[in-house]
């Protein structure tokens, strides 16, 4: 198959890079949620301790 013209090819290349970046961002978001949960639980522990 001959090489795709730039405008068509651009969509595929963009798609591939978007997939890559999206994976990273989703992963980081999940870890961030995990950290937020840990933070919340620490605050609970601290407030229990204060009582």
């Amino acid at each position, binding site marked *: *198959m001959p*090489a*795709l013209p*730039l405008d068509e*090819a*651009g969509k*595929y*290349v963009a*798609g*591939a*890079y978007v*997939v*890559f970046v999206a*994976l*990273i961002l989703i*992963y*980081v978001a999940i*870890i961030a949620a*995990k*950290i937020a*949960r*840990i933070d919340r*639980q*620490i605050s609970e*522990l601290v407030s*229990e*301790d204060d009582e």
Partner: protein
Amino acid sequence: MYSKGLAPLAAATVVTLTTAFALVFFYAPNDADQGFVQKIFYVHVPMAIVALGGFVAGGVFAIKHLRSGDSSWDMRSYVAIHQSIILGLGVLVTGAIWAKASWGHWWVWDEPVLVSFLVVFLLYCVYYPLRFSIEDRERQARYSSVFAITAGAFVPLNFVAVRMAESFTHPRVLSQTGGDLPGDMRLTFLVALLGMALLFVTLWKLELTAKHASMQLKKLRNRARVAA
């Protein structure tokens, strides 16, 4: 203990990946045959190499776990494998995009890297059901380590077998790795590979830190509950 050096590592990752992307789009020339589409190669192949490295690392950590009985090695193994599976999914998706753009089909069997990745991915997906169907924590870790070692040894064998099979039926057309790349493409590729590896290690340390903190917290809460 896992977060040592995390910040500089993250910084290095950002710098390297940004440089890599810049090189890909402003420095590396367009491929003579495939044109602009070949740029996918700079994200697809580094992902594949790093994922394979992650699987092998998971196996090595598993060996250390079995020999020492220290469960922190099991955690390192689990996170490495877990992240490599996610990366592997990315390899398959970007590979499919590349195949569609180059060949017009969403899947091609001619590409030994892609095909052997499919097999490896299918195998490692069983890691989760195997792991989580064993309730006893210590046994779970031990069996997972055995799996990680077996699968880690399998990865290179599988790659060799698939490559041998493909080379007899289909001459390799799509991929170009390492050896026959012109200088400026090779530099771009190496920077991209380095960035991907740094990214993997950074995220690996990040998840380990979060998991470790979560475990420590659980211990604290249990202690507090008992004391109350």
